């Protein structure tokens, strides 16, 4: 589904990703861990196609297409979803309007008709309930005045509505209390399917006890320096990142 080969990318003059390779097959859950400044968030934005994140070499193949050739919005329509670490507040644009515009854009791309407003309202309310957000949030400005946890649950709701094939979740667990973490984890687990893959970017092992990954990778200095299964996350929790960076060096 996703194949990243020797990816190098810079933000401004600074090279952040320095030859990153990663293969994700349908249905797999990959966790990417690593110290601060290792390039975790950059990877998410490069995949999503953020302006100013410049790829200097390497390739990214997504469902057999060259992801790097696509505009940001095309990538979303092709089934890539980035859950933001810091979701953006947009006052004046209602969450409902935002969600519908977004869902319609993706549907149009898939050759489907725009969804009927009444039907969509019903669907959005259902998803609100699933992520434990009051339906009042649909009327408010996008993320406007939402708490950290509410923003993350709003991200999850968007993910549920857009039904992407690849979900990249950038530190979705940061700033969440245990209850909210459980809600997010339940939501993700409910979305797991043989066709849908996840990349979970996280600092902490904690999330991975709720969402069990198939693979754990350590990102450091812009490259994946070690990969393993779940036990690697537990080892990292215990020993920190120091030993790996030394081992690799």
């Amino acid at each position, binding site marked *: 589904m996703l194949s990243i080969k020797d990816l190098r990318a810079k933000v401004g003059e600074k090279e952040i990703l320095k030859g990153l390779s990663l293969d994700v097959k349908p249905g797999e859950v990959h966790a990417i861990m690593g110290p601060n400044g290792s390039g975790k968030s950059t990877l998410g934005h490069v995949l*999503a*196609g*953020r*302006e100013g994140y410049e790829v200097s070499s390497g390739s990214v193949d997504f469902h057999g297409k060259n992801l790097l050739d696509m*505009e*940001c*919005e095309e*990538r*979303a*329509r092709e089934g890539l*979803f*980035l859950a*933001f670490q810091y*979701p*953006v507040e*947009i*006052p*004046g*644009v209602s969450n409902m*309007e*935002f969600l519908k*515009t*977004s869902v319609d*854009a*993706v549907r149009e*791309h898939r050759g489907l008709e725009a969804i009927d407003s009444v039907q969509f309202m019903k669907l959005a309310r259902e998803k609100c309930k699933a992520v434990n957000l009051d339906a009042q949030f649909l009327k408010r*400005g996008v993320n406007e005045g939402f708490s950290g946890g509410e923003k993350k649950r709003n991200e999850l709701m*968007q993910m549920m509505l*857009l039904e992407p094939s690849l979900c990249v979740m950038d530190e979705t667990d940061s700033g969440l209390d245990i209850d909210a973490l459980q809600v997010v984890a339940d939501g993700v687990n409910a979305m797991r399917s043989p066709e849908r893959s996840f990349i979970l970017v996280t600092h902490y092992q904690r999330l991975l006890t709720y969402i069990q990954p198939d693979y754990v990778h350590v990102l450091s200095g812009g490259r994946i320096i070690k990969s393993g299964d779940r036990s690697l996350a537990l080892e990292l929790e215990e020993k920190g990142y120091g030993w790996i960076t030394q081992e690799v060096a």
Partner: protein
Amino acid sequence: MTAFSQHAAALQPETRLTWLDALNQRGREHWKVTPFPTRKTENWKYTSLQSLENGEYLRWPQPTQLAEVTQPEIIPGLDACTLVFINGVYSEELSSEQWPEGLSCVRFSEANADQQQAILAKLGTIAETESHLFAALNDAWLREGVFVHVAANAVLKQPVYIHHISTAQAQSFSVNQRLLIHVETSAEATVVEHYSSSADVQNSFANALTEVQLDANARLTHYQLHLEEEHALHIGGVHVNLDRDATFNSFMMSLGSILQRSDVVVNHRGEGAHCGIQGIYLPHNKHLVDFHTSIEHRVPNCTTHEVFRGIIGDSGKAVFNGRIHIHPDAQKTVADLSNKNLLTSHDAEIDTKPELEIYADDVKCSHGATIAQLDEKALYYLQSRGVDRQRAEIMLSFGFINELLEQIPHTAVRDYLTPRVSALFVKKFDRQREGRAA
């Protein structure tokens, strides 16, 4: 000297009302002695009157048949006491004649002797015609207007809706519009001023003046909506006197036209008065919208809350000059002024100047102006959800304005304006899309 400045005062009202003679005369005199604004006139520095000088507006309109006004655009669901004027002439067919208790709406041309007295007691006393040239011209040209009077303690549920429609005629012309509002002690009212036009290319110049007197503890919710077709020329003023504990809340909007200038002056004359003004301007194409506001805090313990937002697109231009003047006696004033602008094209222009002049030492005041482009982070966020760039730009632009629309207290007005603003952005989106396809 141009034809307009030279001869405007000589254009007499079509039919005189003798009881307005003195006012007509005073207006002509003030017009004649006041230099016509040029680029060197501070208050007109960024606004050229060239389009006014270029057209031949020194003529009154021909009588208009109602049939020419196809489907007058009214605000549905407003449930108001309605007065409609077409090219300055009252339309009985489109207006309502029933007023609730406590309200009277009198046209100057119909005023009886008592009403004339009541009108003359206030008319021309609120706007300073020495410093507002076009207010002087309004006096000079005055023969028709509306006097809205709300009796003490009356709380009006129904808004008063004054709708000016302009149509295109074979020859260009001028229209003089005048409104006097007097809300007596502890009374409450809403007045909606709506300026619209038929869809044809307009060739008229409207000179409008509104004077408002709020007595002690009176409350007025006021709207001034400039939704004319883009070739309309409009110069206008709103001048307000606030007595003790009076509250004036106004919402002003201009969609933009060739020349659109509004002078807003609010005088805090009694302690405890409050003034809230929210404004939106959306010039595009080659429009020019100019808001000059001036809030005079003359006495202690008054408050002002003023917010203007604008989006300027294409080769449009906006001018915003917001002045708050705290006189030496006006201790404990709380005043804030904010002006935010979005420029959506390289050729768009905004000249903004928030001015705070403070001569009292115990006050709380703030002011600020920003000029920005759309937030890249928010655009990225929308795009990352599959929304294309241009659509995202439209959504953000609309959101920026919608923040103020959401605060409009009357649902009918809000529901009327929101799709119009939205359509304006969508139209732009379609133009860009066509441009891309071509």
